[in-house]
């Protein structure tokens, strides 16, 4: 699917850029974005190392297993393919907790650690598992208890009641999580998205 989406984006950009007379802009954006991607990734190194170090201590001391057991009933239902007590349960739990608290600096490294743990259960390297897709759905919804960035912008824009948006953001955010997880659970059963199909297409292309 990413093959088609990616190609469509590029075709669309060049065609639309040509029509709008912004083709030079397209070139500039492509090059700037590529450079920016590296800046983002390099910027992650320190934070990644910090959180992976802490997670290693948590693993060695058995803390990850305790964390995982704490909300196991919910997690088991969300991720039936992940065995009880697997490290992925601990890292996914910590990622979701960090996201909810709005600690995005911690959430990304913990999420990537969770992906590594989930990859250990993957029988088809290169192809996403059901658990990964569900986990991604939770993360792309990015449910936060306090939308701190937006509250900051509201108050710097002169709002008399900058926290008025908390309730509406929470409600819409909850819908995002529920819709994302439901969609992931339903779509994983479709033949169009089956692992076998993804595997076959990998060989032919």
């Amino acid at each position, binding site marked *: 699917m990413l093959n088609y989406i*990616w190609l469509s984006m*590029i075709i*669309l950009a060049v065609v*639309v850029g040509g029509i*709008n007379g*912004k083709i030079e*802009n*397209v070139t*500039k*954006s*492509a090059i700037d*974005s*590529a450079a920016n*991607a590296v800046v983002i*990734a390099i910027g*992650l190194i320190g*934070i*990644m*190392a910090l959180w*992976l*170090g*802490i997670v*290693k201590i948590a693993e060695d*001391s*058995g803390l990850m297993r305790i964390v995982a057991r704490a909300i196991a009933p919910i997690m088991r239902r969300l991720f039936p393919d992940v065995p009880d007590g697997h490290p992925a349960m601990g890292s996914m739990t910590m990622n979701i907790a960090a996201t909810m*608290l709005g*600690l995005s600096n911690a959430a990304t*490294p913990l*999420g*990537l650690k969770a992906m*590594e743990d989930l990859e250990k259960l993957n029988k088809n390297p290169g192809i*996403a598992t059901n658990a*990964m897709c569900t986990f*991604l*759905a939770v993360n*792309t919804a990015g449910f*936060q208890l*306090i*939308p*701190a*960035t*937006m509250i900051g912008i*509201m*108050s710097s*824009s002169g*709002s008399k*009641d900058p926290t*008025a*948006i908390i309730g*509406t953001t929470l409600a*819409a*955010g909850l*819908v*995002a*999580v529920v819709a*994302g997880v439901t*969609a992931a659970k339903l779509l994983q059963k479709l033949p169009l*998205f089956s*692992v076998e199909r993804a595997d076959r*297409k990998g060989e032919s292309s």
Partner: protein
Amino acid sequence: MIQNILGTISIWAIPVFLLAVPLYGACRGVKVYEAFVEGAKGGFQMAIRIIPYLVAILMAIGMLRGAGAIDMLAQWAGPVLEKIGFPVEILPVAIMRPLSGSGALGMATELIQTHGPDSFLGRLAASAYGATETTFYVLAVYFGAVGIRKARHAVLAGLVADVASLVAAVIVCRLAFA
């Protein structure tokens, strides 16, 4: 009140965590310094591994933005959505949201400042922005970290969540603020 409590939790969560984990580890007999360094080694490889995925996605999104395709899409879809009572002013923010976090933030801020932060549109823009994450960025980074090239249904599930939360934001904001 609730916001204060949650705010305090946000400030204290990381220092407490950074203290509690090594402390617990030490109590369980883990050589904490050695374990930390051992784990931290992975940070470099992981950050480097996501670069090609991130370049691919951000480049395509950057090109779309540079071409003015997002404004164009908003202009086309606007009249249709207006008929069903959708506030079209928010559409460019909504289209940008899954593609670029900073792009959407900029557009939402502009909308908030143009219409006023306490206006219906300002609050709707803020709620719609805060209710979801930058889907394509998350996909690129998370899948990139473990070399996943076949995303299967993850893209569609992420976009379903984006659309659902946008519709929910419009409905909830209508009920709360209009």
